[in-house]
């Protein structure tokens, strides 16, 4: 910005722009990102292209790469086995649909929560927090066009 008049003109335009009402509007995404950062506990997000799922418990910090349909539950036959009394034998499933990942809960006893809302069928967005019983899962989807 070269001079004060130029800045004043810019500010007048900005003041009437669609950004102004958004400036101090509460945003619930912030708390989600904070929870992801907290769950990462100083560790990095996977840089590998594709979708990944972080299984986070007090004792566990484990990334799974998603390449095909995966089942999640307490039974040993699942692709991802979660040992918890709150997790049903076959709790939920993740399917890839047109490059997007869908979570399907066929009717687990304690339900599956995505960003604190109980869901049975939902297309996941990168950064979504999934709660299965007392276990937190974080879904991350990296794409090639965003690499540095």
């Amino acid at each position, binding site marked *: *910005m070269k001079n*004060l008049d130029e*800045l*004043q003109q*810019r*500010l*007048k*335009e*900005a*003041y009437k*722009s*669609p*950004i*102004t009402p*958004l*400036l*101090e*509007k509460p*945003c*619930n*995404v*912030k708390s*989600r*990102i*904070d929870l*992801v*950062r907290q769950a*990462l506990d*100083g560790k*990095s*997000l*996977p*840089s590998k292209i594709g979708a990944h799922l972080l299984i986070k418990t007090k004792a566990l910090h484990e990334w799974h790469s998603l390449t095909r349909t995966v089942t999640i539950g307490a039974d040993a036959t699942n692709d991802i086995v979660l040992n918890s009394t709150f997790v049903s034998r076959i709790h939920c499933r993740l399917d890839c*649909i*047109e*490059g*997007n990942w869908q979570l399907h809960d066929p009717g687990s006893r304690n339900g599956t929560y995505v960003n604190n809302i109980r869901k049975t069928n939902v*297309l996941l*967005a*990168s*950064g*979504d927090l999934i709660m299965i019983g007392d276990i937190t899962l974080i879904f*991350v*989807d*990296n*794409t090639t*066009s*965003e*690499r*540095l």
Partner: protein
Amino acid sequence: MNRGPVTRPTLLESVKDANNNEAWDRFFELYTPLVQAYSNSRGCNPEMADEVLQETMISLLAELPKFEYTPGRGRFRSYLLSIVNNRIRRAFQRQSIHQNRHNSLEAIENTGKQHSISLIDTKLDQPGSDWDKLWENNIALQALIQVRARVGQIAYRSFELNVLEGWSVKTVAAELSLSPNEIYQHKDRLKKMLRQEYQTLVLEIGE
């Protein structure tokens, strides 16, 4: 407090540390209105705009630790735009899949896909583009917020009514029970503070 333009480390350097809460809070505060306003301008509803913001921040959380900002060698604003555009496209894809599941009308799928492609698949980070204007406007408004926090309520209101709302000095003076001279003084002082804050922000967030 008078903050000089070289006292703050660049924010892009600070957020490389995922544990730096203060830097991440600031980063979020600065870029959220920009990303949301741009998503809205591309046709996203509030829920989709939130998804775009969330996905953009997650991408940056993964990529920024590797980011080396070199002035003159690619702009952060162009890089951010490429992420936001990509995430808008994904949000429209999800909306299209979701709508198809609940409505068998073929037209919806076509509308969703065409909409996202026609709005996004163009070079949008050029000077004078929507993104460029929003970026500049966002910095100006963030500077205004910083200045507002440092001056008295009357001084800010005087500036807001006179400069931003376009009221005459006489009307503002009558409204706030100030002399015309005081209105001019507030205007000059705030403009100088704004310029300094603007320059600080440009240094802080890069180009």
